[in-house]
């Protein structure tokens, strides 16, 4: 049995879901009240209607909340939480803490910024049986997913299909760009359904980003839908049993046909294409940022340090092929015939014997030496004594 956490653009569409029932698939429509959620598909006034639908009830409150905002939300959560077996789907640790301590409700935790299994298992332990599901960041690779599912005995959710959130600001950034007619008295207020725009930058390699502004601030999405539908059965093998399918940006008229197509992937019929919806395949097979991270400049320096070379200081001047000045933090003096390695800012290493001409400055924390010019050494290179051990 696996679950689809389904987001629709409006609560009115939920009643049509009955026709999609299928053996082995639980479809859980998520209610996101726009007053307290990042991208609302309903209002808190709709909760009564939502609770009348049969099946699991999950209310998403996925903002980050300041002290004052949290007081208001907690008050509302306390009122609603008396409903039988209600689940709140949250991101803010303060709200999670409140739900677990002050109500009897269940929680689903959105671990969007948690990139390791240690964090996920700590959350799982903290919530014990009251946390029923943990959502992973969309950047997880198979390898990372496996680490989580092997450590954490909970329902773990991963993105199946939907817009990929890449930026979340508490400030309302779009409304200052235009007029909001039905709030003519206050153009900074956001209208009921939010503002949707496409933003594009000449400085970015991407063609554009979907932007949404709601009552909790501004969101930016990747230009293409994240589509892992072809990976579902592989993901199941890796221990994922819950999939997020987010259709909040799809027009109501297109929603049910698209959902029908998506469900075919879950029924092992993968011949369907979603060509009307530009999509990309995310990080499951290759975590690009992971790869680049290990090549960044500081990693190169660290390798040099870890090889046991002794850092002496920096070249602060390479003067007209005449002399070099070394700012030395070494407690022992630098002497002629000492062998040093110069690690240039471009990563090139020059090894040379030193010829000290003069110590031109001495203070309690550094000395400055004038040494004879060495070919290839550039200003700002780091100076090391070799590891002889």
């Amino acid at each position, binding site marked *: 049995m696996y679950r689809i956490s389904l987001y629709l653009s409006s609560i009115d569409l939920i009643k049509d879901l009955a026709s999609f029932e299928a053996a082995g698939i639980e479809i859980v429509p998520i209610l996101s009240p726009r007053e307290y959620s990042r991208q609302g598909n309903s209002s808190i006034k709709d909760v009564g209607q939502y609770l009348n639908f049969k099946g699991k009830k999950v209310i998403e409150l996925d903002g*980050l909340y*300041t*002290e*004052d905002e*949290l007081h208001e939300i907690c008050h509302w959560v306390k009122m609603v939480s008396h409903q039988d077996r209600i689940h709140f789907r949250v991101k*803010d640790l*303060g*709200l999670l803490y*409140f739900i677990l301590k002050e109500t009897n409700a269940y929680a689903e935790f959105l671990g969007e*910024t*948690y*990139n*390791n299994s*240690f964090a996920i298992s*700590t959350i799982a332990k903290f919530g014990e049986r009251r946390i029923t599901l943990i959502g992973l960041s969309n950047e997880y690779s198979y390898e990372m997913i496996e680490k989580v599912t092997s450590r954490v005995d909970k329902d773990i959710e991963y993105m199946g299909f939907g817009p*990929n959130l*890449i*930026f979340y*600001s*508490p*400030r*309302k*950034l*779009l409304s*200052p*760009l*235009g*007029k*909001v007619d039905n709030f003519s008295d206050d153009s*900074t207020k956001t209208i009921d*359904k939010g*503002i*949707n*725009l*496409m933003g*594009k930058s000449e400085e970015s390699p*991407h063609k554009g*980003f979907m*932007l949404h502004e709601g009552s909790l601030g501004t969101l*930016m999405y*990747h230009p293409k839908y994240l589509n892992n539908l072809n990976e579902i059965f592989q993901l199941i093998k890796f221990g994922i049993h819950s999939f997020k399918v987010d259709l909040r940006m799809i027009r109501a*008229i297109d929603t049910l046909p698209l959902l029908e197509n998506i469900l075919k992937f879950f029924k092992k019929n993968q011949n369907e294409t979603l060509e009307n919806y530009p999509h990309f395949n995310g990080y499951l097979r290759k975590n690009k*940022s992971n*790869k*680049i*991270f290990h090549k*960044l*400049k*500081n990693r190169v320096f660290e390798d040099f*340090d870890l090889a046991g070379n002794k*850092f002496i200081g920096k070249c602060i001047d390479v*003067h007209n092929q005449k*002399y070099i000045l070394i700012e030395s*933090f070494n407690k022992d003096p630098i002497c002629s015939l000492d062998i040093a390695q110069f690690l240039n800012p471009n990563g090139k290493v020059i090894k040379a014997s030193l010829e000290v001409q003069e110590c*031109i*400055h001495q203070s309690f*924390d550094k000395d400055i030496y*004038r040494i004879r010019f060495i070919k290839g050494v550039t*200003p*700002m290179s780091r100076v090391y004594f070799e590891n002889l051990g």
Partner: protein
Amino acid sequence: MELLIPAGNMNKLKSAVQYGANAVYLSGQNFGLREASDNFSLEQLREAVEYCHAHQVKSYITLNGFLHDEDILHVKDYVNFLNQIKADALIISDLGLISFISEFNLIPIHLSTQASCLNSSAGQFWKKHGVKRLILGRETSLAEASEIKRDTGLEVELFIHGSMCMSYSGNCTISNFTQGRDSNRGGCAQSCRFEYSFKEVNEKNNEDKFSLEKSKSYFMSSKDLNGIDLIPEYYNYKIDSVKVEGRMKSEFYAGLTAKAYREAIDLVGAGKTMEFNQRLPILNNYLNKYSHRSYTHASLLEKAQVDSIYDERESEVEGQHNYVGKSLGLYKDNYLMMSVKKKFTIGCLLEFHLFSGENVTTKVGEILDLDLERIEKPKPSSVVLIPLNDKIPNDVLISLVHGG
């Protein structure tokens, strides 16, 4: 109240300490969110902590990236090393890392602002996980910070100065997807500073009455924070530590910011509010001498609004100086030895930013190399001599006065 200044490398750390920081935060080569900054090798970290302790300054080490499993497994030796060199605190945002090191770490943990702790309920969660200080999210107001301190019984640290992320900290992965660089592990490509053009998304079922008046904008770029005039409020609300952003910025920035805030904190702390108000324009001048975007209080008093957006390209501000170098002490008794960071010329006016008190200015008459040969325009990353009558201490920051 503690003044906490960023230290991106040893030179910046020394400037921060000499100009009045009570504490500095710095990073080793990894795990510290500022991969493009110089950062400190292990040996330098040891020296940095020793240097700080010799000056009664605390040193906090950042390990505030959101790490992956394989990164966390490498952290044990590093944390043991930091234990051994007696670092005063670890700044961490990752819950996994906090729980992983809890069995062997003896150093107090400060929760990084990257964890976006914005309310006391979240503070309680972190307290249960061993955190001793909360570095609150930048969306927190002073009044809320004080409430969080009261409700959790934890120390609170609040930003007072520097650049701002437009997103909630840790909630921006634009660089991951556009450049393959992980902003949460130090690879941010500053996409929020780009100019964007817009297209409306008109869907038939969307009844929005929203129309664009502006088709291009730097709509995601935040103004810089400056809360120096709010120091009395920081005192009233009993904030434990005021934090300055900017490990990537220059030592000029670290030094001048420390100098301005040191004086402000000392005046208000000594109850000299009148004097503080009189000095405020001069202290603000210090903060205008380096390049920055227009200043805002962001969310310190009330939630940041439209006026906190810096909708323009960075440009020079009035009163801005160019940081041109640092004094390295006397050479052969008559010359000031100067490490050059940026070009300047004979005849220009230099300002020497003394560690406290009024600065000294002088017109450059001559520039020489170490063989006492004349130089017209010294190159960056070189050392020159300037004949000077005033006695300038080592490590004093030197700037070029525009128009001087």
